[in-house]
């Protein structure tokens, strides 16, 4: 039963993530005064990628990509969707933070295995960026944890139940602002997309990924969008009363990120890290101090 649950939840998350990506592209197009692709375009892309032939340099690439997707799916399963979950767990935030790292590790391993310098540079930037955004992200999370005295997302989401005014976004607006900036970096959107900068490093980590490897990478990205927006909903928007409510909130958050993505240029990696360590971190620290004392 749990296994079926897990499969269904995984497919749901993948589907939602892909459709979000499609909607995001549509919204970007409209912002560019274009018509844009259909909202299901990402599904088409994935299908094409998975069905075509692909190149592998060695078995580490296969292993890494499978690991990346598995890690993100595992993470996703720990995020409560409007109080629902594939299995009974406390959905511990720290577990989610570390589980997400499997995805990054798998991805990093797969792309460095190709031996392409562009890929390795991309990964080195991605990891540097990770160090950049984990700090503000964790400080915000810490604020949530100590105010609820629990590291369970369910508890945090449950504490916001009831009226819309119970949402944490009203209780900790500074945390929300910091989180919004951090989320931009977590999802790899501009201005924090130095790792995949197509014009500099030929789309960085993805440079050697072809066919199904790129497909798995896109799926990973889709799930990560689901997880990150899902976390945001649980942290600041009451967690949703039902899955549809939840997904709509997620979409809203994702669209904010897409809008920012479209209006910003790109930071160099060290500028990005400095920015992340100064502004979102500073705001988050202020928020944390307000909560702690």
């Amino acid at each position: 039963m749990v296994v079926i649950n897990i499969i269904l939840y995984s497919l749901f998350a993948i589907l939602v993530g892909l459709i979000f990506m499609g909607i995001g592209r549509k919204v970007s197009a409209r912002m560019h005064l274009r018509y844009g692709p259909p909202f299901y375009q990402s599904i088409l892309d994935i299908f094409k990628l998975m069905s075509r032939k692909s190149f592998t340099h060695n078995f580490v690439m296969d292993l890494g990509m499978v690991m990346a997707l598995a890690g993100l799916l595992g993470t996703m399963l720990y995020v409560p969707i409007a109080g629902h979950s594939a299995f009974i767990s406390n959905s511990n935030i720290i577990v989610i933070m570390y589980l997400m790292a499997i995805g990054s590790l798998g991805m990093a391993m797969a792309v460095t295995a190709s031996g392409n310098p562009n890929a390795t540079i991309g990964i080195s930037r991605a990891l540097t960026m990770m160090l950049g955004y984990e700090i503000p992200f964790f400080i915000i999370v810490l604020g949530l944890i100590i105010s609820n005295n629990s590291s369970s997302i369910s508890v945090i989401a449950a504490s916001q139940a009831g009226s819309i005014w119970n949402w944490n976004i009203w209780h900790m607006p500074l945390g929300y602002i910091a989180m919004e900036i951090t989320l931009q970096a977590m999802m790899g959107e501009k201005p924090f997309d130095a790792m995949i900068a197509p014009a500099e490093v030929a789309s960085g980590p993805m440079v050697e990924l072809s066919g199904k490897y790129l497909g798995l990478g896109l799926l990973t990205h889709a799930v990560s969008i689901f997880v990150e927006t899902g976390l945001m909903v649980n942290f600041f928007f009451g967690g949703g009363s039902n899955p549809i409510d939840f997904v709509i909130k997620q979409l809203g958050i994702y669209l904010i990120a897409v809008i920012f993505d479209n209006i910003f240029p790109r930071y160099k990696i060290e500028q990005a890290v400095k920015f992340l360590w100064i502004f979102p971190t500073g705001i988050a620290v202020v928020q944390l101090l307000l909560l702690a004392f």
Partner: protein
Amino acid sequence: MNIMLMLLVVPLITAFLTMAILKHQKTVWTIFLAVSGYLSYALFTMYGKWDLSWSIELGFKMFGKNVVLSLINSPLGWFFAFFASLTTLLIAMFSIAYNDEKHDSKTAPIWLLLIFSNIGIFFAKDWLMFFIMWEAMSTTAYFIIAHGKEISAKAAKFYLSISLIGTSTLLLGIILVSRLSQTFDIGVSIDSLVKLFSTNYSAALLYIGLFITTFLIKSAIFPFYMWPSKAYAESPDDFTPFLSTVMSKYGVYGLILFILPILAKSDLPMFGKISQPAYMLAVLGAITSVLATILAIFQTDMKKLFAYSSVANVGYIVMGLATMSVVGIQGALFHSVNHMIFKTAIFLSLAAVIYRTGERDMHKLGGLVYKMPLTFLVYLLAIISAAGIPPLSGFTSKWLIVQALMAQKMLFVVVAMIFASTGAFMYLLRCLASVFLGQLPDKYKDIKEAPLLMAIPMTILMLLTLAIGVIPGIITKPIDAVLTGMGYNVEPSSWTTVHTALAKSDLNLTYLFYVFMVACVISLIMYLISGKQEKIDQIDNYTAGENPLEWDTTPDRFNFAYGFYQPFKQMFNPMLDLISFERWMSSFGRIVERASSALSLLYTRSEGAILMLYIGIAILIIGGMM
């Protein structure tokens, strides 16, 4: 014969025995393996027998009594000693294969002496025994690190100077404390220090400060975090895991043995939820792990990189201890064991790489995964564990420590922990990418997988870290005994679940493993149902249409491995000089050397001999007048 005594005598006698037959290297290392096997077995049988002890009276009077050296089997000591012996056993197996004609370090007898002192430290009941073994450990380790190589001797000198400072402070501390309690017994001295804290706070702080300095030095905690990068890097490759995993735990053991009970029992000024000295300790741990992580990220020498990584990991352990809570200490002890396992696995796999290639600089290697897949797998699982990624063992302990820190509201310490933990990811991947992945240099086209005797211990370690990750009870059950022995009230821990102090935050690791496995299967199915893949040559890369080989570029030059985190380093460049304790140390060393040369010259020239004589008389006269 008393089993405690046997634990000491067996390594000691074999040390002298092996010294006599040092020429037959394989025999010597096999004896070494047998001894560590015996120790592991004997320690295994000693679990639960907490009344074992041994003591001897020496004909030497102090405080009007004859000095007594004694050993006792305490849960805490057992815990460390057993896992240390287990690690040694696995390293010993590796060493048999490693120490061939070319790599022979001839250190087995001294290493046996080190194991002897190792047992002594963990089972010491009185300070004199503790000190004797401590000093023996420091000195023998010097000879192993130096192991008859000039470059290693330089690094070892650095280790030795800091280590001797540590033993000096320990000696001073022991003498002060034993004068206070009029005995060398550790338990009594804890009580008397607790008493001193209520009467003379600053004196007591000074007393424990001396001990803490020693322990921090041995565990390489800030401000003494620099020596491992030299000593670990230059020590024999098969000794580095011991140095890094077992010897860094002596300080941790000392802190748990002596400092924690005092801080727990005394009435101290508080800072938030915990006492100020404990908080100070946590801050030191935090600084250590952050600095060591940053420095590790910038290393090009893989042994140096993991030396800093060890420092950072001990930093976590100290942070966990400083919480003074059950969960924190549990996490710290758990992490000690985990660190022993995964760092040994890492260092052994690197030793296997060095054994095959003879190269330590990461950017000169690459693509070894094709030639040494098992070594790669061991390294991969070990770094997953080291990075604290579930479902391997490293996660559980890190998670426990983070939970404990959060429960005690040590906000900035826990942020430092997360920083170090994320940074760990950066340096671990750097080594993975540069050594095992990427392009295989031409000169390593013919190397082979590590020999069987090396592969066995590495595989065992790999399986151990997986097993502990899935079933944490393997470690948490003995930790229960340790915590009970320390006087904490603990509920018996379960095989699968770890508990924390926060509400609704318990975690079932076995379940986590199942979930992850199902996710893996889903992802694997997705991989399998999609289109076929074709394997292409490693050098066949997208390079904007160019063929790198036509440009006289060899595969290893094509790798991006040198200056891996260059932009990140640029951010820290202004800071690097400042945090280089190494530079301070060496400038201090230069001052001593100059003073030494000047004084030596004074004695060589001897123009002023008569003048100095008169000065001496003047000193006597003036001294007498005062």
